[in-house]
């Protein structure tokens, strides 16, 4: 039973199966209907709850496993030795007495020892010292304090589902878990005031405005959403035809019309789409303001790139875009430029944020509207093909000319003539 580090590695594994068997026995012993009869033992004044007598244990074991009483006694003694049951009166003797001496169940002592083995010695040391300290008091006080502590831990034990501290690692150095009531000094109050002031100053949008914007967003993006308006040419998950994915790949020579239309919704959409960005770069090249977009891209790379590259990247960006007389000098206003130059002395990944934002707004307000009116864009829009359904038939009376697969968002419609369901059926729709 000793936790001996010099134990050969084979034996822990050999011990496990029989520990598990013992555990099963102990669990069945605690079963409220069929287990050992638990009583509350009454000593002269106090009542001990949840105790079992040695005799009950032996009888139960003999009955359950149909063995002789001697064997049951031995089995019970093994259980006590391993710490599953402990005697209440005489905690020093690990012997099962087949009489009225009370016993109680507990978590396997061995397991506990293994789990907290690194603090076991400290626990024992502290316990001994605490007992010696307690001896300095009157007996009555000792009793009261001991009961008080027991009740405290009984009340404050974690609820059944809480993670056990023996399974988690100890949270070292996390001082955030403390709820000490510190005195409220002037410092504390100034911080509170600052926080409340900032909270008041947050921009708030009225829900009417907000909801209108939400509705207009849904209206605008509705036809572009494959779940809401079905996807052309056909839903690959249903028809096993991946033309949809091929045609909407990030870099494809001929973007679909829907995609090109989406670039017109907002500048963000345009920049997020790689094809859109490429065409925008071409347009800017024609207008001789391509360095703006290059600068913006370089800043993005800095923000999301590797930490080790940050100093070199900042240097490169400065040399190429920000230094006076640089090859591709970007036009930033003086205040932002001052702040950026100051920040460049201690470069980190967000040091170019102000400049990046300035350039972004410049492009958005200036170049983007011109791009949308430009020939490049109009040409793309005209060229982009509307995706046709596979096996297209012209039926002027079909209610859903564009959809070839049932959209889950639509309500079920009445049965159409078999001619109309022909193309749909042709795609293998169930």
């Amino acid at each position, binding site marked *: 039973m000793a936790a001996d580090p010099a134990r050969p590695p084979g034996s822990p594994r050999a011990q496990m199966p029989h520990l598990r068997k013992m555990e099963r026995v102990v669990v069945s012993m605690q079963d409220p209907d069929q287990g050992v009869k638990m009583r509350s033992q009454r000593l002269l004044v106090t009542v001990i709850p949840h105790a079992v007598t040695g005799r009950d244990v032996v009888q139960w074991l003999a009955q359950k496993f149909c063995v002789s009483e001697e064997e049951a006694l031995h089995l019970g003694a093994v259980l006590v030795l391993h710490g599953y049951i402990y005697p209440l009166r005489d905690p020093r003797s690990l012997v099962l007495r087949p009489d009225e001496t009370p016993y109680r169940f507990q978590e396997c002592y061995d397991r506990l020892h293994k789990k907290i083995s690194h603090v076991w010695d400290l626990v024992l040391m*502290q316990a001994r010292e605490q007992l010696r300290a307690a001896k300095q008091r009157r007996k009555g006080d000792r009793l009261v*304090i001991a009961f008080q502590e027991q009740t405290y831990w009984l009340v404050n034990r974690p609820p059944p589902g809480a993670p056990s501290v023996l399974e988690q690692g100890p949270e070292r150095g996390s001082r955030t878990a403390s709820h000490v009531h510190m005195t409220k000094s002037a410092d504390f109050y100034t911080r509170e005031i600052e926080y409340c002031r900032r909270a008041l100053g947050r921009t708030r949008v009225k829900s009417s405005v907000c909801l209108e914007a939400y509705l207009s967003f849904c209206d605008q993006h509705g036809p572009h959403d494959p779940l809401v308006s079905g996807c052309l040419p056909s839903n690959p998950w249903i028809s096993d035809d991946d033309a949809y994915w091929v045609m909407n790949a990030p870099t494809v020579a001929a973007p679909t019309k829907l995609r090109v239309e989406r670039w017109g919704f907002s500048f963000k959409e345009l920049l997020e789409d790689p094809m859109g960005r490429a065409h925008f770069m071409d347009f800017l090249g024609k207008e001789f303001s391509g360095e703006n977009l290059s600068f913006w891209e370089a800043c993005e790379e800095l923000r999301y790139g590797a930490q080790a590259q940050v100093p070199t990247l900042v240097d490169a960006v400065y040399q190429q875009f920000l230094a006076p007389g640089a090859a591709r000098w970007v036009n930033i206003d003086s205040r932002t430029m001052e702040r950026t130059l100051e920040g460049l002395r201690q470069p980190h990944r967000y040091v170019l944020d102000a400049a990046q934002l300035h350039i972004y707004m410049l492009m958005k307000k200036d170049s983007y509207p011109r791009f949308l009116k430009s020939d490049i864009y109009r040409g793309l829009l005209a060229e982009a093909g509307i995706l046709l359904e596979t096996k297209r038939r012209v039926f002027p009376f079909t209610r859903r000319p564009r959809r070839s697969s049932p959209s889950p968002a639509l309500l079920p419609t009445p049965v159409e003539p078999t001619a109309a369901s022909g193309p749909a059926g042709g795609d293998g729709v169930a």
Partner: protein
Amino acid sequence: MAREECKALLDGLNKTTACYHHLVLTVGGSADSQNLRQELQKTRQKAQELAVATCSRLTAVLRDRGLAADERAEFERLWVAFSGCLDLLEADMRRALDLGAAFPLHAPRRPLVCTGVAGASSGVAARALSTRSLRLEAEGDFDVADLRELEREVLQVGEMIDNMEMKVNVPRWTVQARQAPGAELLSTVGAGPSSVVSVEERQGGFDPRKALAAILFAAVLLAAVALAVCVAKLS
């Protein structure tokens, strides 16, 4: 030898922490008083001194690269015990702060809980400070200033723990327990089983001591009765 010194310091810290824990349990109860608060302050100051001394010794030893493996293992074991002690001390100090703030002693109507603890705790404090007896007289508003000090000291101990963690890296899983799981129950040295159980033991069943006392009493009573009868006969 460094090891003995560290062990002695650690034992002292252990004893003081245990006494402090015991004293904190009665804060806010019926035995609370300014004296108790003063005893608490003295005990925790002693504990802190010991902690600082142990910390510096152990850190100095463990940061020394040229330490033999088994010596290092020994010191690591002491380190783990020491950091556990510090954690307990910090938790007890926080508890004292919470309870002390919740039960102010200088308010006109003292809102103390009637826990039934009546005796003095000077014995425990004397044990903590390793003196024979302790006689303290605290002023009427000792606890107010004491609370502020306590707050500062809690933060100090927290900082000490953090510094300790930074300076020395001791993986706790490498430390194994020295004592077998049931050994403390079989040992006859040191404190016996919990006083609660022993009290129950004495209350239940047939106690030879009680029987002896009863017999003696009966004998004395008989002798007294016999003497009285003789006196009555003679007179």
